[in-house]
């Protein structure tokens, strides 16, 4: 067992901010290229029209909405790890909380782009804002789409403030160890933080309230996203299970994304002493738990379809498993519920490549879950004459590629410019002796 010192914590984390190698800039350039492809695809769509996407009757909601739900889902685990586990005083969340919060902020920003993209005429976005206009039109808050506007905006603001508040003491550390322009920037950003006891007295209280407020918010936001679907009468959507089902799925995919980000970070920056095998194992155990909830939701959907004896509902779910998109359905079931159950075995939980690989599959599976729900619902609705299929176009693939590249682009810039592990929380952890530091 190795006990870390305060100096080691500072040094290891600050070393991650040293000028990067050329290979780093190579990766940044590749990701930027992906972002530009996405941006170019969107610009093309704005000029030519929304018809360049594959969405059409009956599938009017395609990859834009799939990606929106996917990224909102990814955003959820940041708050789960940071806020909920903070309230439960789970010491193992400290090494991964900062990166998870950052993941949340970036994922919400990217999720927020998709309704804009899906609008087509993006310059009309102000129609959704409750502002006085000459037309005397106001948004109607009875619509679940307006719930989304207010919920996602709130989530973005709250998660950004939560992230910045957590970062404040670390910005002061960077201010005290930098010179020149960097010092000026960090001096400005740290707001004069010195860690005086009067500051800590209010900070600890304020941070606790942030966590307490973020917890119900995170549950409400994905519930609201689920109601975009559940409040419609489309078969396969109109069900009361959607809110908890979506929240569990969001946490499931978010935890998997945390692993995808943390495992390379741990290797590249020598964070093995902070992000220990035990920390990764705890995340893996939580994935087993969320995977079971998601699996239970899948089974419940089928049970309710059968138990209701509603022929439209039965047909909708029969088609999901046997229709044209059955491959998506089986990817969803296998990747989200069966593969994560492999984490029950300790040997698999403690094998890093397997952890990484299974988490990657979970994210693929969660993307397909949204595909199956969104496309599967509207493609095979009430009227057989209105059934139809959907395939994304190149423009949609370009925008999707751009969104993934933007996420990793922002994250890779973050890890080289700001501390990706909270120095303050790590010091507090060893101060309390709460974390077992087996490397």
């Amino acid at each position, binding site marked *: 067992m190795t006990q870390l010192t305060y100096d080691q914590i500072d040094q290891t984390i600050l070393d991650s901010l040293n000028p990067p190698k050329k290979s780093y800039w190579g990766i940044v350039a590749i990701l930027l290229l992906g972002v530009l492809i996405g941006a170019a695809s969107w610009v093309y769509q704005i000029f030519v029209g929304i018809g360049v996407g594959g969405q059409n009757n009956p599938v009017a909601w395609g990859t834009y909405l799939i990606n929106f739900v996917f990224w909102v889902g990814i955003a959820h685990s940041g708050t789960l790890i940071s806020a909920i586990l903070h309230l439960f005083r789970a010491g193992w969340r400290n090494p991964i909380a900062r990166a998870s919060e950052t993941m949340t902020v970036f994922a919400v920003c990217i999720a927020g782009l998709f309704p804009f993209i899906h609008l087509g005429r993006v310059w009309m976005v102000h129609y959704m804002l409750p502002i006085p206009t000459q037309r005397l039109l*106001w948004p109607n*808050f009875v619509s679940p789409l307006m719930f989304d506007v207010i919920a996602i905006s709130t989530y973005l*603001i709250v998660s950004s403030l939560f992230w910045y508040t957590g970062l404040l003491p670390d910005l002061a550390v960077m201010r005290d160890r930098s010179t020149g322009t960097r010092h000026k920037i960090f001096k400005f950003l740290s*707001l004069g933080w010195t860690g*005086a006891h009067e500051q800590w007295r*209010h900070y600890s209280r304020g941070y606790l309230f942030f966590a307490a407020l973020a917890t119900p918010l995170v549950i409400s936001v994905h519930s609201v996203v689920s109601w975009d679907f559940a409040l419609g009468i489309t078969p396969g959507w109109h069900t009361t299970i959607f809110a908890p089902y979506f929240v569990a799925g969001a946490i499931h995919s978010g935890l998997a994304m945390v692993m995808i980000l943390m495992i390379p970070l741990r290797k590249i920056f020598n964070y093995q002493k902070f992000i220990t095998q035990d920390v990764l194992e705890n995340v893996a155990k939580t994935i087993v738990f969320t995977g079971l909830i998601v699996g239970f939701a899948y089974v419940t959907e089928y049970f309710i379809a059968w138990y209701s004896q509603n022929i439209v509902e039965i047909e909708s779910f029969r088609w999901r498993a046997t229709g044209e998109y059955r491959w998506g359905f089986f990817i969803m079931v296998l990747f989200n519920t069966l593969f994560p159950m492999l984490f029950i075995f300790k040997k698999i939980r403690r094998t890093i490549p397997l952890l990484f690989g299974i988490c990657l599959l979970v994210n693929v599976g969660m993307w397909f879950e949204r595909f199956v729900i969104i496309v599967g619902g509207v493609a095979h609705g009430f009227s057989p004459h209105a059934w139809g299929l959907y395939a994304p176009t190149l423009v949609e693939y370009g925008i999707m590629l751009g969104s993934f590249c933007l996420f990793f682009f922002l994250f890779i810039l973050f890890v080289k410019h700001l501390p990706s592990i909270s120095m303050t929380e790590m010091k507090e952890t060893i101060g309390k002796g709460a974390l077992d530091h087996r490397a």
Partner: protein
Amino acid sequence: MGLFTNEDQVVCTVGALKKSVYQFHRVNSSFFSHKIMAALKLKKSVVGWFTLAGGVIGFFSGFFLAIYTSVQWNLIVGGKPIVAFVPFIIVGFEATILFAVFGNAIGLLTQARIPSYKWLKNYDPRCSGKHFGVLASCKPGQVDELKNFFQRQGGEIREFDDHRQAKPPSWQG
């Protein structure tokens, strides 16, 4: 300022300082220490009241916004009444959280008195690393005694000339 590397030393020093003739000003630390906070016997922060006030304002603002916009553009949607309270709960809930967070942030900023760079006066940058700083002041003739006091407690010494700056900044300057 006495600079210590151990929380327990700080706790002893704070206790001894409070009983001494020297004026204790503050402890600087790089993380929230429960031991030090317990030794300082501080009152509970009032940030929560700001949070509560924000939440109450947000709750009513959310409902007000939803009702006001519905009444202004009174279109019946899906057979629901113009002022439909059930869907407006969502707007009210989100606004409650949003404004409570704003209240919390305002409370934190005003109570912790940031942003203010006056905190950086009489501050040693080592306090954001492995050291804990205990700042105290004394009369001009007692400087050596105070230094000896800190040394006896096991601390390193950092001397600041202007003890008046040791007070926390306030918005009034």
